[in-house]
């Protein structure tokens, strides 16, 4: 087990201009921590992981595992194990041989290999499949073999590259919990790449959000959700996404849906000198109130019933243009299409303000 540290680590692909797939990444992962790297495709999250694995070169900066600088070390000397998105099981080997391959390469005695493989197989419910070839297994079983191959190694760091993306939705939820539980049990430092923000939020001790090769924010899931550092993180984390619009400032608030939404004093102070801001509010942070009250007006265009609750989607007037907003409401008594809702923020602290050009968060309450 070990901590991991990226210091200004950069991967630049030669082209003109060079593409900086990972740009000066500074990131520390604690011993035994479960860190999730999340971002849209092309954000550099897989590249960052592969740099740590030694499968991708580090063009600038350095990476260390434990106290050792591994920047130029080949993968086999890094004491890491990796679970691939495709699983990458050796097709000509049985499940047991797949899991024991790394130990065999290290000339571990046969009986030790056998007992370690058996132990991991018990943990993953693979006992009955040890003599099968990967092609005779289901998708979920293959995924577990890939996990088993990593566990048997007893490495100092686990690397996982979208290990659940080839499973169906139900199995994914189940396996998600299993992996998180297994990691807690083993206590091995784990770096987990995903594009799925639900996986990121539910599995990670901390989550690092990347976009365009640049680290946007690294924080605990709750903090990421409640205090996104910039408008990218705000829009990326959360499903349905945060309502995020550029709105004009006027007096002591912002003009939205024909109404001035009042802002706290700290927010106004932070926005001083600007004539507009990026205004963000999560769908569940908007409350419908009686029509007679003051609030922003929304024309209901679509209602998505989810059972326990419902998503009401409609348009809100922003500087003369209709903008799409989503509101999460109680599943019963949803408004009808064409109705007008009057909405107010549930709490002034749930209103997020970002700089209109840099996208940085303006206040930190």
């Amino acid at each position, binding site marked *: 087990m070990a901590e991991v540290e990226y210091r200004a680590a950069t991967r630049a692909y030669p082209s003109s201009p060079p593409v900086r797939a990972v740009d000066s990444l500074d990131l520390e992962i604690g011993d035994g921590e479960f860190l999730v790297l999340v971002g849209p495709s092309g954000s550099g999250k897989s590249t960052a992981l592969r740099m740590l*694995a*030694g*499968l991708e070169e580090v063009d600038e900066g350095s990476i260390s595992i434990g106290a050792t600088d591994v920047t130029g070390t*080949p*993968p*086999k000397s890094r004491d*890491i*194990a*990796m679970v*691939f998105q*495709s*699983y*990458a*099981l*050796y*097709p*000509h*080997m049985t499940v047991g041989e797949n899991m024991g*391959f*790394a130990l065999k*390469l*290290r000339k571990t005695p046969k009986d030790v290999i056998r007992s370690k493989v058996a132990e991991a197989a018990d943990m993953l419910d693979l006992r009955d499949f040890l003599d099968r*070839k*990967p*092609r*005779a*297994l289901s*998708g979920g079983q*293959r995924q577990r073999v890939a996990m088993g*191959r990593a566990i048997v*190694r007893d490495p100092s760091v686990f690397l996982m590259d979208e290990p659940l993306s*080839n499973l169906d939705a139900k199995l994914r939820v189940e396996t998600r919990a299993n992996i998180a539980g297994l990691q807690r049990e083993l206590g091995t430092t784990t770096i987990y790449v995903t594009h799925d923000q639900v996986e990121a939020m539910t599995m990670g001790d901390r989550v690092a959000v990347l976009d365009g090769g640049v680290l946007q924010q690294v924080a605990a899931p709750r903090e990421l959700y409640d205090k996104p550092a910039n408008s990218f993180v705000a829009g990326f984390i959360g499903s349905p996404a945060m309502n995020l619009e550029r709105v004009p400032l006027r007096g002591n608030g912002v003009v939205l849906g024909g109404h001035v939404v009042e802002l706290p004093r700290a927010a106004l102070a932070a926005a001083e000198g600007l004539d507009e801001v990026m205004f963000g509010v999560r769908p569940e942070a908007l409350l419908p109130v009686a029509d007679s009250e003051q609030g922003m007006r929304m024309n209901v265009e679509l209602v998505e019933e989810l059972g326990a609750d419902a998503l009401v989607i409609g348009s809100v007037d922003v500087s003369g243009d209709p903008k799409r907003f989503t509101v999460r409401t109680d599943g019963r008594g949803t408004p009808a299409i064409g109705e007008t809702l009057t909405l107010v923020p549930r709490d002034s602290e749930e209103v997020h303000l970002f700089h209109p050009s840099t996208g940085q968060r303006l206040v930190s309450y």
Partner: protein
Amino acid sequence: MREPRWFQWVRGVGLCLLTLFTVIPLYVMVTTSVKPLSDVQDTFQWWPSVLTPQPYVDMWSTVRLADYFVNSVVVSLGAAAFSVLIALFAAYAISRYRFRGRDVFRFTVLSTQMFPGILFLLPLYLIYATVGQATGIVLQGSHIGLIITYLTFSLPFSIWMLVSYFDSIPVDLDEAAFIDGAGPVQTLWRVVIPAAKPGIAAVSIYAFMTAWGETLFASIMTDADSTTLAIGLREYSTQSTVYWNEVMSASLVVSIPVVLGFLALQRYLVQGLTAGAVK
């Protein structure tokens, strides 16, 4: 959609003709090989009047068939073995590494396939003669000379076939092996080659058959001690008579190794060994 009746007829007739086209020569071969010599020297009989196993016995003494057989086996196995061995390393490098001159190399390898073999006959002959004079290594008329000759035919195509086969094996497998602690050679040997067995089987058969049936170079590059079967079969035709029945029996026997080779390797040819590797 149902096919019209006339189409079914045309197809049926067409396929029957094609089948006859393939089967009749085989039939003639088999029946002729069990006729006595007198029956194959005048008018052709579709149905043999006398059946005898004698040609299968006599063919070994009429010409030195056993010697030629050994020559062919040595040369063909040698060519196939070297072809596979060299092509494996070349194809792995082309498939997995990006290096200066990679595309030039690929193209050069392919371009050798664009010239007719006879163009190489004279240059190769002269090279062998010169090498022989300068170093005393006898290439011309020797097994090793013939193996090298056949390598020049089969190697380029073998490399191409294996490159496309390696390309179909996900790089994830190599990377998983690296992380598991294997070096490049171990990865090739323990992971990539086992996954590429069907491709390797195809290349071996191809290289073996190229050498087994070749006549042009064999007729120039062999001497009495290194004559291969394809050339040796001609010797059944002497000045006084042609032993057609023995030609046919020998031809059938000569085909057996190729058929056996096919049968042994065919399960690799049809089986997708990479199934289950990814996803």
